[in-house]
């Protein structure tokens, strides 16, 4: 059979019955052996907790027949493992700002866009650099700027779209401040409210240097004390001023604590230790699921966005490489997209996700419409009651108001040193 005859079959039948897949020409003619082989394939994926979901691994086993082993780590540990233990994984589920550090080390291989069936359907933020043709470009490490390399062996990022992708986007979102509307006592509209003395001892900021400094920069710009050329790539004097500001704020007793992991942020908020802090969307959902009021407050200055994607380890080849492409194509085909959208993230190919969501779910999560019925989490727990409207509104309202993307700065080394001063102060 011709190598790409698989297009004639559904994805599932390809792997379970026909036993032929694109690119597996070498073993054509032994379909049954291949079909059994794929069951023995185990792909080792690691990433942050947000998208390393057991439900995905189970569905992969069911739909594609092979085993997906997941390891969840925190943001920093993901970067570290990707660079220092490149043989220990097959698929890296990693953030775009981290890939800026990781890809140039040569531990990963670019993906051939021709083998990604839905590549043209991926949200244009990733493939064109803009959400809509007339969107303003955001600051920071945009996924587009680190999404492509020039060829199959490329290690440096291409200036525009090419046929070789570093990551296939999985999830992304627009982050803002989380508040406890029941305890905060006044409307919150700006990033500068984080450092309002009224919330002394009740505010928190995350202790992940590369992201925390961006939140601080949003606050600084909101206060009007500093205007950055690029918040995602600060100059040394800009870093100095930002850190000096953070140290002053810390010494004045503004912060109750600094958090590093998702759970910490949930606990700080749920326990009432903190009433305003940098937060991630599912953490807000987790606080709300305890029956505690928590709002993901949209702010006038816009959002700080982030995106993650799946990338392939350099050592992947042959059958495992085929399985990895198969997995990525499956990832974009809708089921996972719907699952992620239902958690409050956005998925890479919205059209296929839509087919897997009810019109009400689609309306609530993506279009920003009031929920007609109760909105359930992927596990079937009630997340929002009928009538609720998503904080920040629709996909276009939220992703269209991104002020900057999570970044790695040129002065990264200096910034981390200064950040340590802030923590030690």
């Amino acid at each position, binding site marked *: 059979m011709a190598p790409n005859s698989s297009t004639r079959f559904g994805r599932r039948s390809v792997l379970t019955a026909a036993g032929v897949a694109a690119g597996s020409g070498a073993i054509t003619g032994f379909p049954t052996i291949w079909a059994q082989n794929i069951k023995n394939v185990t792909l080792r994926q690691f990433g942050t907790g947000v998208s390393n979901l057991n439900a995905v691994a189970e569905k992969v086993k069911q739909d594609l027949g092979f085993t997906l082993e997941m390891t969840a780590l925190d943001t*920093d*540990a993901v*970067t*570290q493992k990707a*660079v220092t233990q490149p043989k220990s994984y097959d698929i890296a589920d990693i953030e775009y700002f981290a890939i800026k*550090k*990781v890809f*140039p*080390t040569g531990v990963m291989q670019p993906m051939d866009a021709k083998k990604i069936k839905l590549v043209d359907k991926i949200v244009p933020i990733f493939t064109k650099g803009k959400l809509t043709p007339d969107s303003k470009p955001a600051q920071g490490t945009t996924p587009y700027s680190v999404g492509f390399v020039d060829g199959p062996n490329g290690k440096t990022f291409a200036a525009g779209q090419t046929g070789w992708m570093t990551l296939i986007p999985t999830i992304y979102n627009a982050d803002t401040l989380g508040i406890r509307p029941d305890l905060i006592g006044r409307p919150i509209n700006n990033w500068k409210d984080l450092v309002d003395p009224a919330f002394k*001892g009740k505010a*928190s900021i995350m*202790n992940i*240097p590369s992201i925390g400094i961006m939140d601080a920069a949003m606050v600084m710009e909101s206060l009007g004390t500093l205007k950055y050329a690029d918040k995602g790539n600060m100059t040394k004097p800009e870093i100095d001023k930002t850190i000096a500001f953070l140290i002053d704020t*810390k010494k004045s007793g503004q*912060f*109750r*604590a*600094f*958090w*590093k992991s998702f759970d910490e942020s949930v*606990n*700080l908020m749920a*326990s*009432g*230790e903190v009433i305003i802090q940098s937060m991630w969307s599912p953490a807000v959902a987790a606080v709300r699921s305890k029956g505690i009021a928590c709002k993901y407050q949209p702010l006038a200055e816009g959002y700080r966005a982030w995106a993650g994607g799946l990338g392939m380890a350099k050592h992947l080849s042959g059958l495992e490489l085929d399985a990895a492409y198969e997995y990525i194509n499956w990832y974009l085909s809708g089921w996972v997209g719907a699952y992620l959208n239902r958690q409050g993230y956005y998925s890479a190919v919205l059209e296929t996700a839509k087919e897997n969501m009810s019109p009400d779910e689609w309306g609530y999560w993506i279009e920003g419409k009031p929920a007609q019925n109760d909105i359930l989490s992927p596990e079937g727990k009630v997340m929002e009651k009928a009538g609720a409207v998503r904080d920040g509104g629709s996909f276009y309202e939220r992703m269209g108001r991104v002020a900057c993307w999570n970044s*790695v700065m040129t002065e*990264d*080394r200096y910034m*981390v*040193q200064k*950040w*340590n*001063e802030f*923590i*030690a*102060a």
Partner: protein
Amino acid sequence: MVVDQGAVRAPRNLVPFVTFLQAAPLAAVLIVFLLLPMFALVVVSFFDYNSVQIIPAFEFTNYTDVLGSAVTWRTYLNTLRFTVIVWVVTAVLGFTIAYVLAFEIRSRTAQLVLFLVCTVPFLTSNIIRMISWIPFLGREGLLNSTLLKLGLIHQPLEFLLFSDFAVVLAYTHLYVLFMITPIFNTMMRIDRRLLEAALDGGAGWWRTVVEVILPLSKSGLAIGSIFVVTMVMGDFITVRLMSGGQSASVGLMIANQIASLQYPAACANAVVLLAVVLTMIAAILRIVDIRKEL
């Protein structure tokens, strides 16, 4: 094999060789798991790095960065401050508890049972033991809400959690057993006739404790101190969790550097920390000869 058979009736000149062979397994373990990693640590501490990789080189930048920065000094001072406070608290507590166990409890069974009771909390992971303080000490935690209900306070006590107090409390809870055990052990070896002699000589309870029991428990105290000092000096997780990330320790500084892939800087820091801790241990051993008194 010649050597194996030779072990019993070895010619005199083979004996040292056999001794070496007997020490070989331990030596091999120490070389592979201690000396080689330490060697790597020292080597990498002279490397250069950028945000993605480490670059083999021989330069002192990492050391000048570490030693030349005011943050390092402040962080070391802070870590030393925690170490001294925790050392004093655990030493006093450890000595008192061990004294009660060894001298006040007469029955052997009761002694054993009570000692085991001391170890019960240590059957759980130390992270869990630490985290369990958080809901207890929080602003809306058990302690604050109880005190508020009893009318003893009108505002929640904020210093209880995410503060230096919380850090010292957690350290004490985590490490006091490492003091109790060696002190209890040395106390149990004290010849009871010495206490009778002290009594006969007219010494009161306080003098007996200070002039007989305390000097004879020195080796236990020294061993406990080594444990506590090394653990507090190297800790990063207790400081982070209990201070809510507000306080810094040398370990935390190293952890942050590792997280940012700044391995050479972390190595240089680790080498400095190692030197400081070894000096402290040397000082303890200088004051108390633990082998003599074991």
